[in-house]
């Protein structure tokens, strides 16, 4: 009987029929890859995705329809693909690929792994699992019109983490709390405020005036606090924002008065801040303008969509009042002690952030934005379209064909450009890079250097923010190589809990110390060299340096030089920093959430989005985009160029 594999060349047919594939992500790219695989004659495929289907997926994730909203992407995708060819064997896992269930042996069960993810943490993790299991990996990502596919094979090519990726965009805490100058600062503040009031309160996300602002010298802050008559607690020791709100029953006008009047007036007393800045203006609920300054405003002419209309401050206050009322009810409906989780697709949470960001912007004389624009920035949405995903997903399959035919030498990194390059190529094949011998992931004996202040950093921060967030370990163990084998962190519950609140110095970690860190799940061992440093650039509590020779501060990367491919990097902040580019922002971070299909190697759209989507706490788009070649194809993009790209701005929205 005739099957789809019959049109394949004989050199390929048998290996296609016999192959067992793992597809990680069933979003924008994943749906398209799955369709191509089934229609190309593959018989045995497992699909893993922890995400569920959202309405905004339906414009491109074509295996899903309205009646599937809320259901598992992996399951619905497999059911739909079975409709194309009922004789294939598909298995769906509605789960995180980073879960302990999927160890190295699980990965070893596959001929190839295909990534269709939307965040860097999951990409890093699958990269390590495939390196450990010695299974070839095809990585992919899209952002808007741009896309990329590459092949990773241990010992032969670069791994996903061989080159630095653009760091997560972060802002110093004092900019967010005291001196915002751009819309994004107000948006980050509003998201922090949401968490303070309704979400998981994080001390690093304080939204009140910051008296420890380095711009203030000694006396200014302290005396200002005492001389401020409007403060209700009359005390420098302040009640938590949540506690204060609860005491006042989340009464919107009282919240408004505290946030946009009392706190602003308090900021005004820190006069050093305003010597060279326009001071903010405290707002009064009853006298807010009900028209947008500069009038005739509005970004899109089409104003029937509330999202696209610029709300005047009075309307922001009304939206705030409504959203706070509803969020208070949502919070009350939860078990005691539970909290809400901000989601850009939750109407009330998004209304709250849009209204608060604009009110704060109004205080500081910063341009207001539409809810539509604020949603892009707050949700770090990467636009995604069906056509780009379809093309990139197909290129994933062509690279898989090469691997199955034993044509590893012919495998390429393929870029989809928006316009043809100087050599007329729209789809540009480039030679795969060799592994970076200093890669802290795929090198024979991986090492990495981390600069931090051993007298300030607590062990818990080392575990959570350095080892897990920046270095992407899932459940690390850490041993101090001091000749005695002191165990600092154990992945066994509770064994080393007493160490958590102690500083590294108290635990015997000093400049030059070496820590052997091990992640059992990833089968990954890494030596972390500690360099003590008390002067890290603004707000950072640590910095990951590829190797000690790179210790001099990296020059800020210039903007992408390459007009042709035109991508700016799409990497949205994410939790994981790659080699040499980590910065641990202990302070305010734009947490990206989600979505997307991202790129640079990444599409997942929306980490939500991504088309690939995999879930992890922070969604980032990991983009391997760091190396989009300019005009050259068939050739290695010069290292210089790549580095330049990798430093480009992380996007609130972007194409790559």
């Amino acid at each position, binding site marked *: 009987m*005739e099957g*789809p594999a019959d*049109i*394949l*060349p004989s050199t390929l047919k048998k290996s296609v029929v016999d192959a067992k594939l793992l597809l990680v992500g069933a979003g924008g790219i994943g749906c*398209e890859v799955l*369709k*191509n695989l089934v*229609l*190309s004659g593959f018989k045995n495929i497992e699909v893993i995705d922890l995400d569920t289907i959202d*309405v*905004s997926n*339906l*414009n*491109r994730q*074509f295996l899903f*329809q*309205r009646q599937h909203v809320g259901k598992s992407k992996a399951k619905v995708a497999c059911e739909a693909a079975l409709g*194309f*060819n009922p004789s294939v064997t598909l298995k769906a896992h509605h789960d995180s690929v980073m879960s302990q269930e999927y160890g190295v042996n699980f990965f070893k069960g596959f001929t190839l792994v295909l990534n269709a993810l939307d965040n860097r943490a999951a990409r890093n993790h699958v990269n390590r699992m495939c390196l450990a299991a010695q299974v070839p990996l095809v990585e992919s990502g899209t952002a808007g019109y741009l896309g990329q596919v590459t092949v990773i094979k241990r010992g032969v090519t670069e791994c996903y983490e061989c080159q630095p990726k653009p760091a997560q965009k972060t802002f110093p805490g004092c900019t967010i709390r005291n001196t915002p*100058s751009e*819309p*994004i600062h107000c948006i980050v503040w509003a998201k922090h405020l949401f968490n303070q009031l309704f979400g998981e309160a994080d001390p690093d996300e304080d939204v009140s005036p910051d008296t420890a602002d380095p711009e203030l010298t000694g006396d200014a802050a302290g005396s200002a606090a005492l001389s401020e008559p409007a403060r209700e607690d009359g005390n420098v020791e302040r009640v938590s924002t949540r506690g204060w709100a609860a005491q006042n029953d989340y009464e919107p006008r009282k919240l408004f008065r505290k946030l946009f009047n009392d706190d602003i007036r308090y900021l005004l007393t820190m006069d050093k801040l305003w010597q060279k800045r326009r001071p903010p203006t405290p707002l009064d609920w009853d006298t807010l303008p009900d028209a947008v300054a500069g009038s005739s405003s509005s970004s*899109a002419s*089409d104003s*029937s*969509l509330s*999202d*696209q209309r610029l709300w005047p401050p009075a309307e922001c206050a009304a939206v705030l009042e409504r959203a706070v009322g509803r969020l208070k009810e949502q919070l009350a409906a939860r078990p005691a002690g539970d909290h809400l989780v901000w989601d850009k697709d939750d109407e009330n949470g998004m209304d709250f952030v849009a209204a608060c960001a604009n009110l704060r912007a109004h205080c500081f004389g910063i341009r207001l934005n539409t809810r539509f624009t604020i949603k*892009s*920035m707050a949700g770090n*949405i990467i*636009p*995604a*379209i*069906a*056509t*780009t995903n*379809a*093309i990139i*997903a*197909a*290129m994933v399959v*062509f*690279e898989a064909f090469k691997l199955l035919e034993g044509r590893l030498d012919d495998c390429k990194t*393929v870029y989809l450009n*928006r*316009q043809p390059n100087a050599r*007329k*190529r*729209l*789809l*540009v*094949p480039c030679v795969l890079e060799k592994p970076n011998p200093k890669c802290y992931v795929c090198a024979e004996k991986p090492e990495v250097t981390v600069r931090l202040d051993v007298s300030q950093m607590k062990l818990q921060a080392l575990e959570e923010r350095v080892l897990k967030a920046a270095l992407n370990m899932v459940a690390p163990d850490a041993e101090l190589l001091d000749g005695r084998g002191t165990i600092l962190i154990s992945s066994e519950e509770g064994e080393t809990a007493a160490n958590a609140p102690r500083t590294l110095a108290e635990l015997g970690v000093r400049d030059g110390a070496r820590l052997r860190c091990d992640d059992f799940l990833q089968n990954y061992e890494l030596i972390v060299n500690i360099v003590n440093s008390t002067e890290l650039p603004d707000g950072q509590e640590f910095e990951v340096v590829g190797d000690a020779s790179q210790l001099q501060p990296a020059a800020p990367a*210039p903007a992408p030089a390459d*007009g042709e491919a035109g991508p*700016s990097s799409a990497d949205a902040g994410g939790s994981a920093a790659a080699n040499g580019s980590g910065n641990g922002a202990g302070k305010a971070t734009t947490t990206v959430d989600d979505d997307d299909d991202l790129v640079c190697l990444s599409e997942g759209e*929306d980490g939500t*989005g991504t088309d690939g989507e995999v879930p992890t706490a922070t969604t980032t788009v990991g983009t391997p985009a760091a190396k989009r070649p300019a005009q050259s194809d068939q050739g290695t993009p010069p290292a210089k160029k790549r580095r330049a790209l990798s430093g480009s701005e992380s996007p*609130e929205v972007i194409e790559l």
Partner: protein
Amino acid sequence: MKTQLGSMVTFESGDITEEEAALYDRQIRLWGLDAQKRLRSARVLLIHMGGLGAEVAKNLILAGVKSLTMLDPNPVTSSEASCQFFVPAGQIGANRAEVSVERAQRLNPMVSVTAEKTPSTELTEEQVARYDVLVATGCPDSELTRLNALCRRRGVLFLAGDVYGFYGFMFADLGRHEFAEEVPVLARPGGEPAQKRPRTEQPESRTVKRTLQFTPLEDALGVDWNAEDRRKTLRRTSDVYFIMRALRDSLKGLPTDKVGDAFTSRCLGELSPACAVVGGVLAQEVIKAVSQKDKPLSNFFLFDGYNSEGVVETIAA
């Protein structure tokens, strides 16, 4: 003729509803509300529902055109099993277009999806004029040039494509096409250097209006590659163009050194991922053409899946 398109678009565009805004959110964030409005007033005629036709249909229905008419007189054969995902199992012998409607419609209830069994060779100028765009797949050159001429006369955008195993192509004749293009704004006069400026969310750009004149397929195919004055162009023209010509016609009259034979086992049937690449490019070009946003590819896109390469060639008399 193009003005005809322009006026039609303006006439039909109403406001985007909240429902549409939610469904199309991720693409509106890319191409904007105006482009989406133009898209949703476009009527597309798609000829032949093989693997490539299915990809084009999927992408355009998802994008939200006004209507898509699938025209195909042919019955489903066993080979559709390998690439046509709209055809349910067990439908061999049924009409390819009619049997595709149900699954195609499910992708987006806001698009009117219909089927017609008329052979494309019987399409008249009046029938063609009922559409804004005609996309022809699986047609011989003679039929493509006939349809292209009908489209030209009535100001209908014409695109075509085909897939042969690992290879495929797209062709576009948009007549005299006006479009808006965003160009980056260089350093502001007298302003600070770029690095000093505060980084804002979007790089600055401005929209400019451009015009591109296309060539009919007949003229493009009429190029004599052996002519003296073509030699220089020939050297820089992609092999894939000639492979495509060889696959469509015969080797007769073509420079044979451009056509190897190592690929023959790779040019059979409509390989699914090749359909996805060519169908993706074709649909994106329809979207660009209808929304009059961004520079279209002019005028051939040539795909080689064996070498993972896609080239754009401008071939004009």
